[in-house]
């Protein structure tokens, strides 16, 4: 692969003016925000589309992606894993090799450039697993911006190494105790803080969800993943993949990989966190088990009760532990373009161990869900087929969680 990748900067499948994605007459997305945020959101929308069309902005963004983040990330043919599974050839898109260890930096570089262009000196962000928080703290350090990260106290416990990383990078990490003290509550709190400080503060939203223009903007910043993977697969395998698989919490790595492939004849699969099982209430599978709902400024699928109260979620991975999902993925599912699948905590944990032992790659627990489902799908296919899996992040941050969980499982077996 040549080092100078040429990206397609055309915006394909844009939502309507109000940020709505339509599928079979059903509407997703939009801008369900409080009045105080409407003007700041409009300003971001205008600035984003102007910047996107500005050669200088794009040149700086792409230069940072190349020289700072290390793009293009490799596409790796996992031959030992493919052999182990005994079906299709498995290719891994190595977003874990992106600077800061996950795909998240693609988006924060873009939004930080936009914040600087808009004259904002302060950035805030929510984070679940801490990967978006780290990616935001990283660009804040690079651009010399003040940075506050909101993180559920439960997630701070689960992802302690990332909390320390953010602090080292100079960010303030502010614990959120309200609600379930996880990602959704961190979003609530960041929105509250943004309302009060929207004049000088840019909210670097971490996933392709939230009010318009965040879903389209975050998607555009992440399409580098799918564009590279598509070209790399053609170059290495001489053809496109048959299936593309990505894990979904809010859905930023999934939309980044899958969106550039949606006009190809490729099965697109989103893998949600099934936690203790889809038959229990302890999961985070909004596409598989949710209903239409409005949360965090956007109409999409949501895990909620019959009266619209958002339900607590569970996943072994903090980054997938979110009751909603990006509106564009919801629309793609509704229209039949996107298949949804899921992996339980235990399946993800097993995939985490398998990939580590067989390929020497320690995946993030989030990405391990995609690996688990991808292996299952590949097993049912022929060796001439290709399954492309987004390895969205590396697993160093999860070692504590995995260590605890394996110890508990071992105790269970011994007993």
């Amino acid at each position, binding site marked *: 692969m040549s080092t100078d990748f040429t990206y397609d900067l055309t915006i394909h499948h844009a939502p309507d003016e109000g940020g709505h994605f339509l599928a079979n007459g059903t509407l997703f997305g939009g801008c369900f925000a409080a*009045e105080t*945020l409407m003007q700041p959101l409009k300003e971001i929308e205008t600035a984003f589309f102007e910047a996107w069309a500005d050669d200088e902005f794009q040149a700086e963004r792409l230069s940072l992606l190349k020289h700072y983040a290390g793009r293009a990330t490799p596409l790796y043919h996992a031959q030992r894993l493919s052999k182990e599974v005994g079906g299709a050839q498995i290719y891994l898109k190595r977003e874990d090799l992106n600077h800061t260890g996950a795909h998240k930096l693609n988006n924060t570089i873009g939004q930080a450039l936009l914040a600087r262009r808009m004259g904002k000196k302060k950035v805030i962000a929510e984070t679940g697993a801490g990967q978006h928080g780290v990616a935001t703290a990283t660009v804040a350090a690079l651009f010399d911006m003040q940075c506050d990260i909101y993180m559920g106290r439960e997630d701070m416990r689960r992802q302690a190494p990332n909390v320390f990383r953010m602090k080292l990078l100079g960010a303030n990490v502010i614990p959120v105790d*309200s609600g379930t003290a996880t990602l959704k509550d961190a979003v609530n709190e960041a929105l*509250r803080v943004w*309302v009060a400080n929207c004049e000088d503060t840019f909210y670097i939203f971490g996933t392709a969800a939230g009010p318009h223009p965040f879903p389209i903007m975050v998607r555009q910043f992440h399409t580098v993943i799918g564009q590279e993977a598509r070209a790399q697969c053609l170059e290495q395998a001489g053809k496109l993949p048959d299936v593309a698989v990505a894990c979904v919490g809010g859905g930023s790595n999934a939309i980044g990989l899958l969106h550039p492939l949606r006009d190809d004849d490729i099965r697109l699969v989103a893998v949600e966190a099934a936690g203790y099982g889809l038959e229990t209430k302890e999961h985070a599978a909004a596409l598989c088990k949710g209903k239409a*709902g409005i949360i*965090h400024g956007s109409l999409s699928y949501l895990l909620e009760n*019959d*009266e619209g109260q958002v339900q607590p979620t569970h996943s072994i991975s903090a980054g997938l532990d979110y009751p909603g999902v990006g509106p564009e993925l919801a629309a793609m599912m509704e229209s039949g373009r996107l298949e949804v699948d899921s992996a339980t905590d235990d399946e993800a944990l097993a995939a985490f161990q398998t990939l580590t032992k067989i390929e020497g790659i320690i995946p993030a627990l989030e990405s391990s869900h995609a690996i688990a489902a991808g292996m299952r799908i590949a097993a049912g296919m022929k060796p001439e087929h290709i399954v492309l899996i987004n390895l969205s992040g590396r697993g160093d941050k999860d070692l504590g969680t995995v260590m605890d969980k394996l110890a508990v499982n071992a105790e269970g077996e011994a007993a």
Partner: protein
Amino acid sequence: MSRLSDVFSRCKSAHRSALVSYLTAGDPNIKTSEILLNTLAAQSDILEIGMPFSDPMADGPVIQAASERALAAGTHIQDVFRLTAQVRQQHPDLGIVLMGYANIPFVLGFENFAKQAVSAGADAVLLVDIPPEEGHICDAIFQQYGLDRILLLSPTSTEERIQLVCKHASGFIYYVSLNGITGADMGDMAAIEQQVGHIRKHTTLPLCVGFGVKTAKQAQEVGNFADGVVIGSHFVHTIPTHIADLETMNQALKQASLSIKEALLA
């Protein structure tokens, strides 16, 4: 004439600003909430009855906690309608606004919601996260059922947005006095007065000012230029303060609302 416009006409004849009060339905529990809502209704011209929601993104800690208490006490949307009907029965002239977040009526179905809201005696609906741009999902239904749709304006609202909101709002317009969440500290009074004056050029609807009004003095100052003064967190706060003793809680709420009412009459 809607009941809300009657309320504002009455207040105007009396040369005073309307007291628009807020409590979350079911806080701290359904039984106590009925008593508290009626106590507050007796002093108020308009009562905003909050529909508890798991994720109150625009609310400060006081009203967030109120939602959590109400949900923990098992408050369902049917209880909100029942409480509304009970208040309506005792206060036939009171303006009643159901206030909350989009997802509650969305999941119930806007038509179903509107039908039950009207039959419970509500006059209007205020949904914080449905700006005029997204009104296409509910406006026609609310209009069909004769429910006013209260819209918000804020210090960040541009000229263009002020016009848009004035075009789509009915009942009254709620001016959020600060960039922030409910219960924050109030902004500069002169700037608020100026902005309210500016909005008046675009609408004949009554203008109420809220978010951050906590003291009788502030209420009086706002009352000098606004058609209504909205008090929420200040009233809600009496509940956790006296959580152990219902009688004291009810008295404290009565006192708090009386002192604001007197300030508006003065």
